[in-house]
């Protein structure tokens, strides 16, 4: 059978089934509607901005945009090229691996079809990204809406080549044993790029000036991929010229070349894509909260270890996570991140200590940390335990189960925050009570998130819904859980004219909410299911 027809039929069925599922469960439509509202608000924002553009300086604005594009784009490109020497990118799902790969179909055609399909999909998906960036771009410089399609094509032109290029690098590298050479080449490119920028910075005698000049140098426009897509991208800012079309054509040719070369070199790539495909499947599951994210662990994975019993019943969950952490780290409570936090604390302390006398850096750092903790701990932590039946089966109080399964994570976070704040506080001469308030403030966000994780399971028991609704849930979580604290903290700080009170107020409200969530644990557990 014709491979393309087969695959197109399969994808057709998948799309039809998606629609069928929506029809049988129209609640889903609500989710998509919310996304539409979100996209609509972005467009609306763009339109509003266009009427009253805030211009910095015509020249400077376009330079900033150009430099941003080249800087970020080059970093991306180099990163993915480097990744290509280590692992392949994947265009496949686990279903493909198990059903399609063993079937009598031509691997080359399968690859070609999948690459083209992914490219078409990305043309659409990355559109949202540029849409989201539009307000920022429009704030920086006046742009010509007439040439907006160029901006869009330049942007996706860069992203479209990344996956095929990465695949090609891996395929060629592993086929001809060139990985080391390629890696050296990429490192050389990185070094050249950095030296190049350093030269401009030194010549200009100013970091920003140097970067702007270096990244906007006109010869860069002739560089493949990054330069070409920049020319196309900048059409909307600097105006149309024949080079815009030339860049577009070159970029397209490059993409087609990548795909064609992949087609002719790739005949035996199944094994190469296996690891990346598995990892992608795992990441999908993690997003859905079905699987715990793999933590960073040191290469030594200790086999033999002894962890003392910490209690019976639900406390066994605490013992269990201690064992896991002791195995993957050098201490159950201290690990890689403790060192990172410690270094960050010392670094910021030394740097900020020279610049200012006040405690502002301390507040800023802790505010940012709390925010990051809240956003990023949402998907992993206690979810892991909920994927196993034991937390449901073990006899004992539900309150202790929640505490027991989270305690190691909390203590670890506590250690990290201490490692950050103690050197930072000492270097900035902060009073001890302020440091303590900030530590409690940060940790309270972490615990708040962990204890609300169980709620996610109840509100969205279906893993797929969890994934689709994840951004929405984050927003809700922020509104419901963070807002009270921020309001109380703000009011306190305003009334007493004292910044520390913001932090103390928020921490106090967080702790109250945690208390309420924990008291509700029995109700929560009665509604949890293990499907």
């Amino acid at each position, binding site marked *: 059978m014709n491979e393309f027809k087969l695959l197109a039929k399969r994808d057709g069925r998948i799309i039809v089934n998606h629609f069928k599922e929506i029809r049988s469960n129209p609640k889903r439509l609500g989710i998509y509607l919310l996304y539409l509202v979100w996209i609509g608000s972005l467009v609306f924002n763009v339109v509003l901005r266009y009427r009253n553009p805030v211009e910095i300086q015509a020249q400077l604005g376009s330079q900033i945009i150009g430099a941003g594009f080249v800087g970020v784009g080059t970093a991306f490109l180099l990163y993915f090229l480097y990744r290509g020497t280590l692992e392949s990118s994947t265009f496949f799902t686990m279903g493909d691996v198990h059903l399609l790969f063993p079937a009598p179909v031509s691997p080359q055609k399968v690859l070609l079809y999948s690459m083209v399909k992914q490219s078409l999909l990305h043309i659409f998906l990355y559109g949202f990204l540029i849409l989201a960036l539009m307000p920022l771009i429009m704030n920086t410089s006046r742009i010509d809406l007439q040439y907006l399609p160029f901006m869009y094509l330049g942007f996706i032109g860069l992203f479209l080549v990344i996956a095929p290029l990465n695949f090609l690098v891996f395929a060629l590298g592993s086929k001809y044993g060139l990985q080391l050479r390629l890696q050296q080449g990429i490192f050389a490119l990185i070094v050249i790029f950095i030296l190049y920028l350093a030269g401009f910075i030194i010549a200009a005698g100013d970091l920003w000036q140097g970067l702007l000049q270096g990244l906007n140098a006109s010869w860069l426009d002739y560089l493949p991929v990054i330069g070409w897509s920049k020319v196309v991208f900048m059409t909307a800012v600097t105006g149309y010229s024949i080079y815009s079309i030339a860049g577009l054509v070159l970029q397209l040719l490059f993409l087609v070349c990548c795909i064609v070369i992949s087609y002719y070199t790739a005949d035996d790539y199944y094994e190469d894509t296996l690891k990346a495909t598995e990892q992608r499947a795992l990441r999908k599951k993690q997003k859905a909260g079905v699987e715990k994210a793999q933590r960073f662990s040191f290469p030594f994975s200790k086999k033999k270890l002894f962890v003392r019993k910490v*209690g019976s*019943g639900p406390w*066994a969950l605490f*013992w269990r996570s201690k*064992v*896991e952490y002791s195995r993957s780290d050098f201490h159950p409570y201290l690990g890689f991140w403790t060192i990172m936090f410690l270094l960050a604390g010392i670094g910021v302390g030394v740097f900020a200590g020279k610049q200012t006398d006040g405690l502002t850096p301390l507040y800023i750092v802790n505010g940012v940390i709390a925010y990051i903790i809240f956003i990023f701990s949402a998907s992993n932590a206690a979810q892991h335990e909920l994927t196993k039946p*034991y937390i449901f089966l073990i*006899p004992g109080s539900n309150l202790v189960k929640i505490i027991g399964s989270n305690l190691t994570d909390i203590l670890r976070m506590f250690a990290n925050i201490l490692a950050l704040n103690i050197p930072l506080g000492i270097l900035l001469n902060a009073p001890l009570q302020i440091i303590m308030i900030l530590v409690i403030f940060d940790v309270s966000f972490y615990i708040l998130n962990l204890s609300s994780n169980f709620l996610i399971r109840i509100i969205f028991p279906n893993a797929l819904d969890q994934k689709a609704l994840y951004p929405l849930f984050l927003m809700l979580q922020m509104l419901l859980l963070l807002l009270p604290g921020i309001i109380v903290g703000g009011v306190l700080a305003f009334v007493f004219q004292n910044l520390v009170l913001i932090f103390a107020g928020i921490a106090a409200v967080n702790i109250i909410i945690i208390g309420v969530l924990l008291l509700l644990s029995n109700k929560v557990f009665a509604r949890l299911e*293990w499907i």
Partner: protein
Amino acid sequence: MLKVESLTKKYRNVVAVDDISFSLNQGDIVGLLGPNGAGKSTTIKTIVGLLRKNAGSITIGSYPSTSQEAKKKFTYVPETPELYDMLTVWEHLQFIAYAYDVANFAEKAERLIERYDLWDKKDKLAKELSKGMKQKVSICCGLLPEPDLYLFDEPMIGLDPKSIRETKLIFKELSEQQKTVLVSTHLLDSIENLCDRVLVMKQGRIIVDMTMEEMKRKLGNSGSVSLEDLFLEVTKDE
């Protein structure tokens, strides 16, 4: 020991278990049979409290099944083994021992591990085990607390012949110790001489609940009928 009354469980709009009732007395070894999708796993998971029932009542030794007292009385072996990747075989048993407050667990755990030929795998991480070995660990975890009621969901899947025989032997011993066992399985000959009673489910309902003798008697033609024949007879579509 276990009493299920008019239990109903729905997944969204699918009725997976439809108003079933049965009870197990102390010392009963009961097989839960039925074609794929009959609702066996759903029934067991609802008894265990992993799923919420939509209607009906479940009591374990006179306690409601979700109470702490009930949870101390039973263990459950899931359909597919769910282990912690970063724990060793031995640590799994240790974990269960702490969770269920098992007295002198080391001795018991050693015996179980020996019986299932896991002794040399004792310090291996779960993620390094084969599928069948994971299943064995999962069974050991279910056996270690020595509760009154055992709920097994297809425990023999993926086991090698020796472990299947060992599991059957263990069931025999449990029956001698007057323990209660509910085991769902498709391997009919493996429970033929083991169960005193079978429940056959089909499309969420219990269509047969009889002792083995009754079942054989009902279908007449005496000795030569195997459980498989009986099963196919009662579950066939009209």
